[in-house]
Each structure stands twice: as C-alpha cells, then as structure tokens.
C-alpha cells in the first residue's frame, strides 16, 4: 500500500493558507514585528534629558557641560537646590543630574582633588546605567584633554558592528524568537485541531500509519516556517530594516532547517499533552520562555547563575543563535560551526523522533 506524500503535504499547506487568522499573524510576525523590534527597541542612549546643578559657574564647568551632545544627551537647564534635584528625578523629568562643586575650576588648575557628583535615576535601569557610563567617559576625556595627560591611552576597535548599532542584533534576535514561537505553535496547533474535530480517530482507523501522518505534518509545518524565515531574511531584514548580512544566506537557512526539526519535535510534545487550542497556547508559552531565557538571547549565558548556565546546554535555541548570529553578523562559514551543527543535529534528531513517537503513543 502506498501513500502519496505530496497529497499529505498539500493538505497541510492549503489548510495553513486558508486559516486567515494564523496566516495574518505569521505575516505580521515575520515582517512588522521584526521591523518594530529592530528599529523601536534601541539599547543605546538617546536624547537622555539631564540637568546641571552648577555651584561653580566657571568657564571650565560650562565647557564640561557643553561636552554632553545631542542626540545622546539633552540638556534641560540648571537647578538651584537639592530639592529641585529630587523633584526632577521623582517626576522622571531627567535621567540624571550633574552636580559641580564650588571652586571646581580653581582646584583643577591647582591640581587639587575635586569631585563631580552624578545623580542618576535608578528607576530607569538601562538608560541610567548607560548615562553614568557615558558621562564618566566624557568627564574623563574632558579632564585628560585639558588638564593632564595620563601615561596610558586605551584605543577601542569594534569589529563586525562598527557603530555598535543594536538594530543589527535586535533584528536577528527577534527573527529567531519569532521562528521559535512558530515552530512550537504551528505543528501543535495543526495536530490539536485534528484532535478537536475528531479527524485523528479517522486516521487511526485508516491503514495510514500515524507516524507517517505526524511526520508529514511536522515537516510541512517546518517547511512553512522555513519559507517564512527566508522571506523575513531577504525582505524584512535585508530590505526594510536594511542591516547587513555578512555570511551566506544558504548557510543560515540550512542551520534553520536543523533547528526546525528540534523545535517541531518539542511542538509534538506540546500537542501530545494538549486537548485543545487553549492548552497549546499555554504550553507554548511555558516552553518558549525558558528556551529564550536559557539561550542567551536576552542575557549573556556567562551572567547567569551556575545552575542556569548548566541548564542552558538544553536550550536548542542556544546553538541556533550561536551559529546563526555568527553567520549573519560575523560572516563565519558553515564549516567552522561544526560544534553547533552537531549539537543541533543530535538534539533535533532525538527530539523530533521522541516527540513524534510520544504523540503517536498518546493517540
């Protein structure tokens, strides 16, 4: 008895494209969502409002304040008392306040010790952190430029992303998050729909082995996600967001293909445990969040507690992000990514086989 795989695939793909809500969501996620994430979320300091409390009002103090330029900083004016400082910080009118003491210029010129206070609004964690780092750098440059020369000069060079633009990182990171989400969601949703409508029973009674059906389904869904990824890569990222892609797109898609197997295997676990769409969405979120956390996509793995660092070995997204970012941002060729490929293949093969097996057992 022979079954046509073409017919099996055709059905899944047609059903996906006829499901308007899901299709719309996919199109949104692979275009607008990536665009918004990469252009809207900026990890650099932009137009940070700040005040000065200048007790010196000398040439040097004004010169120093003029070194805080747009578009990073935005000078809002002078404050006259500590109470005003508290007021602007409390009302979130400023990220920080720079306080310059009496006799600032005089002490500097004399070579005496003097202090500049940076009062930062800790409620806005990342911008205040950046504010104090930038401000420290500016003050240091001002002093070394005008008053004395230190014996060491630090010369930074940025490779791969010369402007340190977060757009580049955000675009790829969001693409991979979206890919993960759809890989977890689509196959599980497709299977559970069959469960809900009772089609799965018909298939179980038919001579078509359940495993063939499940594999056809996850492969079809994987292909859909793969083509959407290709579209997002060539269109959304390269054209619309227009960030550079250093390596070979084919390498990137090959790695994505490996990842498809891993994630759709997980999706089958979700499907086997769920009876309806609500449960699928709940389980998807439950699995997606740890995968994202442990992948190093949001925080570097090195910054995590030891236990989580060990667990991060389990997140398939980790290997995918490692490899895919290396290809996209650094232009590393595939053959130098063997360890990621091996890890993804092993994990993918195991999860895909287990997920489908588990699914078939549970019917």
């Amino acid at each position: 008895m022979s079954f046509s795989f073409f017919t099996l695939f055709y059905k899944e793909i047609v059903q996906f494209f006829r499901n308007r809500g899901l299709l719309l969501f996919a199109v949104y996620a692979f275009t607008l969502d990536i665009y918004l994430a990469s252009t809207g979320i900026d990890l650099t300091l932009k137009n940070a409002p700040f005040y000065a409390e200048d007790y010196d009002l000398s040439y040097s103090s004004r010169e120093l304040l003029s070194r805080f330029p747009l578009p990073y900083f935005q000078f809002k004016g002078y404050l006259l008392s500590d109470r005003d400082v508290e007021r602007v910080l409390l009302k979130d009118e400023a990220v920080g306040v720079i306080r310059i003491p009496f006799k600032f210029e005089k002490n500097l010129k004399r070579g005496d010790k003097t202090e500049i206070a940076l009062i930062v609004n800790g409620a806005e964690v990342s911008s205040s952190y950046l504010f104090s780092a930038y401000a420290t750098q500016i003050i240091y440059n001002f002093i070394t430029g005008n008053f004395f020369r230190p014996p060491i000069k630090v010369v930074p060079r940025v490779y791969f992303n010369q402007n340190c633009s977060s757009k580049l990182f955000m675009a790829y990171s969001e693409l991979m998050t979206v890919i993960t989400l759809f890989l977890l969601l689509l196959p599980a949703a497709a299977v559970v729909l069959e469960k809900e409508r009772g089609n799965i029973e018909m298939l179980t009674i038919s001579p078509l082995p359940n495993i063939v059906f499940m594999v056809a389904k996850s492969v079809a869904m994987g292909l859909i996600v793969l083509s959407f990824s290709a579209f997002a890569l060539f269109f959304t990222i390269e054209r619309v967001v227009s960030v550079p892609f250093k390596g070979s797109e084919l390498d990137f898609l090959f790695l994505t293909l490996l990842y498809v197997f891993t994630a759709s295997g997980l999706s089958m676990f979700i499907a086997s445990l769920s009876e309806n769409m609500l449960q699928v969405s709940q389980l998807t979120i439950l699995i997606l969040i740890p995968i994202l956390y442990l992948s190093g996509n949001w925080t570097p793995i090195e910054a995590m507690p030891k236990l989580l660092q060990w667990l991060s070995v389990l997140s398939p997204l980790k290997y995918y992000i490692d490899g895919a970012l290396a290809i996209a941002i650094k232009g590393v060729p595939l053959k130098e990514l063997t360890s990621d490929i091996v890890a993804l293949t092993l994990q993918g093969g195991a999860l895909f086989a287990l997920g489908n097996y588990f699914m078939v057992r549970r019917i």
Partner: protein
Amino acid sequence: MRPVECENLRITYRKGKTVAVDGLSFTVDSGDIYIFIGPDGAGKSSTFKAVCGVLRYDSGRLLTFGVDPNDDRAFEPVKEKISFMPQGLGQNLYKKLSVEENVDFFADLYGVNRKERERRKELLLKTTGLWEFRDRPAGKLSGGMMQKLSLCCILIHKPELLVLDEPTTGVDPVSRREIWRLLYSFNREGQTVLLSTSYMDEAERGTELLLMKSGKSIVSGSYDEVVSTTSPVFVVKAKEIYKVYRELWKITNTPRLKGDIVRVVVPQNKLSDFKALQERLGFSAEPVDPDLEDLFVERVGLRRVELPPLFKPAVSVPEEAVVVDRVVKKFGNFTAVDGVSFRVKRGEIFGLLGPNGAGKTTLIKTILGLYRPTSGRILVAGKPVGRDVKKLIGYTSQKFSLYHDLTVFENLIYWGNVYGISQNTVRSIVFQVAPIFELNRFLNLLVSELPLGIKQRVALLSALLHSPPILFLDEPTSGVDPVERDVFWQVIRELSKEFGVTVLVTTHYMDEAEYCDRVLLMNRGKAVAVGAPRRLKEELRETLGNAYLIYTDSPFETEEFLKERGFKTALFGRKVKVYSKEPVTENLLRELGVPFRALKPSRITMEDVFVFRVLENV
C-alpha cells in the same frame, strides 16, 4: 392576548447572505402544545430565539404576548413570562452545582419566595424522579436526567410560555416519556408550550404542529387535520419485496423500503398503473392512514439512487463479519460498555440503537481499536483489528470527520490517499459517482459551506472510496431531513443487499430500526434487546397485546383510570396509548366508563420496545 403571533417572519444571517427563516406565519394560542418539526437548519432555533427576543428578526410581524421582541425596552417585562431552553443537553445548568443548588439558583434568579420555592422544588424533583439525586452535581447526571433537571429549573417560576428547543433530541425513550409527562402536567395548569423536535414520531404529541423545511412552513395545524395526503397511502407486502420496490419507483417518487414492507403514496392518476403492477407482480397492498412522513415525502418527493458496481468489495470476509464477545469498557469508575455480546453476519445491516450516553459510540470505537477493551474479545473479519484489517473497514464518525477548510474534492483525494488510493483512481470514482450522489455542484466548495445532508453524503463517499467490505457508521443520520435520510438508507441497503457489504450503524432515532436487518438496543452501557425489529415488536405485542389510541379531553384522568384497571399506558398529548391483549372496542370503553372522543388502532413501535424492555429490566 395570544402568546405568539407571527406573520411573514424573515430572519437572515451574515448580512442577509444566509436566510434562516423565510416568510413564516403561525399563531400560538393560550394552552397550546405547539410543535415545530423539521430537520437541522430548517430555521426552528432561529424562530424560537426571535420569539424570545434573543435574536433580532429582519422583517415581518412578530408579537410575543402582544409585544414586539425587537423592541428591547418594551419587551423586558414580557421576558418574565417566558422560559427559554436552548438546544443541547443541560446547556443552562451549572455542572458543578448540585441538582438542588441549580433549582435554587434559578428560583432566586426569578425572585421566587422561599416557601413557594421549596414547595415547587419538591413537587418538580419528585415528579421527574430526581428527588433522590438532589445532592448529585449536575455534571454527573445522565443525558436524560440532565434534560429533566433543565426543565425543572425553568419551570420553578411558573412561566406562562415555555419555549423549548429540541428538548428530547438524543434523550432515551424512557426519559423522553417522562419529559413529555412533565410538559403535559405543566400544560394542564393552563400554560403554553412551544417546542421543536427533529423526531417525526413526536408530531402526534402536541395539539398543533408546524412542519418546517428550509425556513418555510410546509404544513401547519392540528395533527389530525394536517396529516392527510391528497393521494392514498399503501403498505405493500411481497415475497420479493426489493423487486417490487424497484418497480414502484417507476410509478411514483414516494416508496420507502422498511424491513420487509414498502410504504408508498400513490398519486391519483397513477392508481391504475399501481393496480396493473400489483396484478403483474402479485403483491398485497393495504391502504393505511397517512403519517407525517408520508405527507413530507408527498410534498417534497424522494430521489432514487442506484450505485455503480465499483463499490463492490474485492475481498470477502468470513460469515461472522464482526464478533463482539462480553466486551466491557470502563473509564475509571464509570462503565461505558457493560458486557455486550453480539455477532454481525456478512452482508447484514446491524443497528446499534440507544439514546445519547448509552455507550454506542464507545462500543463502536472499542470495536475499531480506538479504545482498548477492559475485558472481552473482539474480532473484525475474523481477526483482532490490526493494519491488515483496517484496510477492510470504512468508517464515518459522528462529526463526519471531514476537513472543513478543504473543498469536497480535496477531502476525497485526501481520504483516498489515506487508504492508499491514487489520485487518478479517486478522480475516476468521483467522476462516476458525483452525479448519482448529486455532488457535482458542491465539489469545489469548502466543506464548511455545505448543508448537513451533503456533508453526510460526502463523508459516506469518502468512507467508500476503497470499497470496504465492512462499514461502521456512527450516527450518520442525526438531524438530516427524511429525504436525505432515505437517500442514505437506499445507498446502505444497496451496498448490503447487492454487494454484500456488512454495515454496523448507530442511531438514536428509534424509527430507523426499520431499515436494519437486526438491531441491538442499548441503554446505560447494557444490551437491552437484540434481534430483528419485526420480531422484537412482535414479542412485545405477544406480552402486551395490541396498541390503541384513545382520544380524550382529560388524558391524565383517563390514563390514571386505565392504569388502575391494570392496563399498560402512555400519554401522547391529548391521547392515551393503551396496550391490551383483549381487543379494546368503543363498547368496552363505554362499559368501563372511560370518557373518550374517539378510538383508533395504533401500532407497537420500537420506542415501546425500548421503554418496556428497560422498565422490565430495572
């Protein structure tokens, strides 16, 4: 003021694209038991919702207690006089609350005072037999009990008009009779009942009826006035009944083959042809009183279906096609199938009859290997169900299991493929069969856009693509109108009688037993009776005697009176059905002092068999 007055009612959905009710007119008088009969999608539910002000109608004139339900503010006070029970088992109940808490909740909702509430609650729960279960959560009741509780809940505040959407669908015949009894006692206090059903045999139970199809009324009025055909109805008996049946099609489009008889309406101008045919074939034809189905088929007309031999199975199966031996299926503490045994012979149409929740579907799924039996032995085509047996089985499930987002043709290709049939073969089968099944204009439509009857045919066709020698059909005729149902049974009969296909079919329509060679009656997981429908009815006739209908103005008193005298009885609206071994004559009734208007002979139905078998077993 009349409870409902309606003229030229029109209700549409999807901005006028779907017409649910199309120019319907009817009037419900105070004290009526008004029955709407029609298949799914006829527009019964829409009409009821409009009457209760739940759904806006498009045009026409509709007054409920003299107020237009579309006028929300004016209608608000009227709502207190109405109780509406939506379609589905126990839809208005809170499944986690106990029986008593549910009733209390509804009483509080309508502001019934405490004393009155306790009095009515006890009365209602005791008449429905729910009193001893009053602490049980509603979700753990059987379908019939749930439906009775729903009724108690909406009766607690004494509404003037009761609107019930299919309260008896899928309910077991014993509970069904109890529900009707409750409605009659409610009606006896002067309240009005408006009720819908898809069972043709419930038509007789009301005072007025309206037969609906595709949003329009076919006939309306009281049963005895309405149910008459312009042409005479015959019951035909013959040795070679199938041959006679075929010939009859040449004269009229109304013959229905039921077991070993044919029921036919012969048009006046064809009576001579009928006589000639009778002489040529030598069958007996007995004129009978028309019933609602006769009326329906005379108005709408049936369609003859003849299958091409391509569905003849290539493989033959053993003489005992399906063997079920002491099968038990438990889910936790709940026993869904409790020691059922039967054998289906090759080429037989075997019916599993029973209400919702009787265990029919569980049993069929256990036979097919979807559930592992807790104990017992099952053989299909002589073997336990495995891959090679699966090829021999065709199956349609209750929900028809078609993909709603694929077209009819895509579905057929897909299901063909699942059975290893190539696209080209499916194409050629569809090409030959589509005109016979009247599917041509539906082939490229999405299944979600199809009417129920067409869905059923597509599902059947998809199960037949691989010409299986054994067919399992789970509730294939639910909610389908009599014409569609007849087409379906013609196909099944042809498959069984001409091609030797074995068919196992489940249904909750007791009257469909007529189409089966043998039936198994199921109730609460147990087999109640098994045998040929005619024999089962004959057996009951031997123990109970013949059935008669007594027309009376005081049915309750009449029934009580007869019961006291040792007769077995059942209530049918303003009629009492009585079973007696001694012939019941008008003289006998007069002697006994029973008040009556008329007396007619009636017949023993499959429902009677079910009710009496269940009650005897209890």
